[in-house]
């Protein structure tokens, strides 16, 4: 059992006996048993270093309606490291071997870090 739910049950049993259990306690339980949903953030770093500046970014948030938002030149973070400091977990690091180039030609733009946050 989820430890937070276990704590809620212990506290709520006491409240039930004392007659102080409220609807707010039930709302809290509802929050605790919600399945966490994944936010996905693509960050394109200017190198494989997590401190590098960002070239591009894209947030996929399935928790909200998919509506158009105006383009922006402002990255959500200065670097991948800043995103990690804000609670994002890296689920894919760029593999330098996949970034092929031939002489002066390439077909990619920045080094792809994929991050997630469960909410």
């Amino acid at each position, binding site marked *: 059992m989820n430890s937070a739910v276990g704590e809620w049950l212990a506290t709520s049993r006491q409240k039930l006996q004392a007659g102080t259990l409220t609807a707010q306690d039930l709302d809290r339980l509802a929050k605790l048993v919600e399945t966490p949903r994944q936010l996905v953030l*693509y960050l*394109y770093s*200017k*190198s494989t270093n997590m401190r590098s500046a*960002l*070239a*591009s*970014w*894209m*947030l996929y948030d399935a928790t909200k309606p*998919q*509506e*158009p*938002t*105006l*383009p*922006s*030149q402002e*990255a959500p973070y200065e670097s991948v490291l800043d995103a990690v400091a804000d609670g994002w977990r890296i689920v894919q690091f760029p593999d330098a071997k996949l970034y092929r*180039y031939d002489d*002066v*030609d*390439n*077909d*990619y*733009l*920045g080094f792809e870090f994929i991050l997630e946050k469960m909410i």
Partner: protein
Amino acid sequence: MAVIEPTLDDAGVMEFVATGFVLLEGVLDDAFNAKCDKMAGGNIDAFIGEDEFTKTVLLHSKIAGVARSLLGEDFLVPAGGHHHLYEAPHLGQTWHSDGLSGLGYDVTELQCYYYPQAVEIEDGPTMILPGSHCRAVDREAIAHYGDIRGQMSLTVPAGTVAMTRYGIWHKAGPKTNDRRRGMIKFSYHRQAAPQRDWKIDAPQIPEYQNQPRLAYVTEVESYRDRVRRMRTWNWLCGLDEESQLRWERSRPVSEIA
């Protein structure tokens, strides 16, 4: 036979080489814009092939002048095209290049976007990524990119034509209103072998003057960009392959006194 004078000089061509586009703002008049604005979306080969569109747009001195500058003499004038029309709000297209990206350093096709009405940011303007025209890509493999530093939304006055090197990354931007936003797309093509026959002041071919680094570009990419641009410039000037690939500002030791 229509005589078209080139309008770009060395500096203008060098800028195109770096960015992959020329923007001609408000060059077409309101009456013709209004006529085009009424067109239905989809294929409009017949409309583009008419004399009126050809004379008013395709042979317009400023538009055709850029085509003449970048595609040489007797370039091919479009006989068809497409009207991309949006009205309802939408998320926007994903980044893509059209068809085959155009690998290499040549300039053989100019893909043009004509806006019969003014375009504001809420209208879902076409977005382009300056400097992306030389990256040969699988168009489906760049669809996950979102905002990119240095991207450009073409918020323009009515009657504007953007002329791009075929292969530039672009997309319809996110649209947040219900206003009609159309764009007529058509392409000019090259027939002539490349030579420096745009507007020139002196016969000597100048060295390529590198342009500012683009915002999304990494350290090594700025180095690659410089070489790619130099090769495109040399190709446009009609220099032979050996000259095209010669390292700029270098000369054989035997030429040094």
